[in-house]
């Protein structure tokens, strides 16, 4: 494995850890999204039979039955939507600046307003952003592990087919006993 591939593997590992622990890092979301796209392409090329995609919570269960060469249903938020989730934080910057601070009564009124109105709004925004991101990252992780399970299943089938081939070769009259299959890794 070269250095770039090692970097990719490590990047995916830390991203999955981050999302599993609830850290909502944009880079982690993008890395897992890219890995999902790669797995989807691989599986579609192989022609995985029907798989069920269940959204994180509540939504309808989608059933996808691609044939060989068809891509499985893409699963991602548009980049714009993803960026907006992170921009919500910027929009919370509702602090008035400048002249309002120069007059004492206005400063007091503004302090009162900020404490009881803006802070409530900020906290609401923070909670909403947190929940949406959490839901999205949970959905991504669920989808990732589904695809990984499918990829492993595919690998198992390949190994079984190879074993069956070797067995049939060994059972053929006059054939030498087969040595153990040289699998690179499970």
């Amino acid at each position, binding site marked *: 494995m070269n250095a770039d591939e090692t970097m990719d593997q490590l990047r995916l590992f*830390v991203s999955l850890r*981050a999302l599993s622990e609830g850290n909502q890092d*944009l*880079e982690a979301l993008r890395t897992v999204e890219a890995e999902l796209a790669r797995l989807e392409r691989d599986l579609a090329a192989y022609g995985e039979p029907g798989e069920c995609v269940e959204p994180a919570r509540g939504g309808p269960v989608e059933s996808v039955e691609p044939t060989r060469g068809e891509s499985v249903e893409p699963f991602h938020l548009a980049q714009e939507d993803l960026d907006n989730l*992170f921009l919500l934080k910027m929009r919370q910057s509702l*602090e008035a600046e400048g002249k309002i601070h120069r007059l004492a009564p206005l400063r007091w009124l503004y302090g009162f307003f900020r404490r009881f109105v803006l802070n409530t709004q900020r906290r609401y925004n923070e909670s909403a952003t947190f929940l949406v991101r959490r839901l999205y990252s949970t959905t991504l992780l669920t989808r990732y592990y589904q695809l990984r399970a499918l990829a492993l299943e595919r690998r198992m089938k390949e190994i079984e087919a190879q074993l069956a081939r070797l067995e049939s070769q060994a059972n053929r009259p006059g054939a030498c006993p087969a040595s153990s299959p040289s699998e690179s890794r499970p």
Partner: protein
Amino acid sequence: MTATLAAGDAIGNYVEMIRTAFAPRHELVVLADRGTRERSFLPSYAYVPTADDVLWFHYSIYSENFACLRQRGPDFRIMDYHGICPPELFNRDESEIKRLTARAKRELPRYRDVFDLCLVHSDYSERVLRQAGYERIVKTPLAIGRSLAEAEEHPFLAGGLSQLEYVLFVGRVVVQKDVLGAIELFARVREKRPQLKMWIVGDRSASPDYQRQIGDLLVRRKIERDVGLTGRLSDPRLLKPFFKYARLFVTFSRWESFCVPVVEAMGFGVPTVTTERTCLPEIIGGTGLIVDRSDLDGAAGQVATLLADSERWGDLRRRCLDRAPLFTEAEMARRLLEVQGLHFHLKSGPD
């Protein structure tokens, strides 16, 4: 008492070290205005001072806990001066934190009679406090957390990272840390050493604008695949291999009052590349490379030469390991107990 208590960050680790240092003899209650759910604490307003209490006040950004500094109490008060980042070093989308630091800075001279003793962690911080009119100041360096030093490294990360040649940055990814500068340096060094990689370990939740600038820079310099951004890693088993297998630690921070990741890197024998800014040359103390931020091409040449010169790199590594014991938890506990002795001396009436 601190403004914010988060598990795994410098302040969170420091509070744990204080707890360990004083635990056998004293009861320690942690008070904070906000924090992460992994750490338990009482709200700051729950503090009722008595003559038997020592208030260990962590002074950084302005917070609600400043209310208890408005008047002198019967307790003994120690200011643990973390330092205040200059407000101009915050990005335009960090207006709230900018306001809080500006206020903490403005109010600093007001409390010189409220504290009985001040603790600083570098000569730079001591100068700042003296300029603000403070007098009883004791310097105690911060330490490398025992949890990091003793952690068992994650085998998958250790296996992968040990195969790479990479430079490391650890810290919050914000304007103050000048992460863009560190990435620019890496991009230039990589032109001379194409196998070199970079890992940036740290919280990226602040300043979306700055995060976008970093993403744009990686694309512009075509190094997206060569730079790994992990986000915040609070688990020492994950953090340890990043330090252990790094070739160099890079920080171009525009302001620091101590910089714990630099001494953590030192503990693993990893030399630091930094600039002549605030306290960083004082902390690394000849165990790293000090470069000129305004001449990144020259700096990249120096770094590439160091990476190619295994003898010189080995010498810096040895110096790091020799200096690191100054920043162990045991050493810090010894210094803190000296402060405790000073407390009793002051309380019983100094000459």
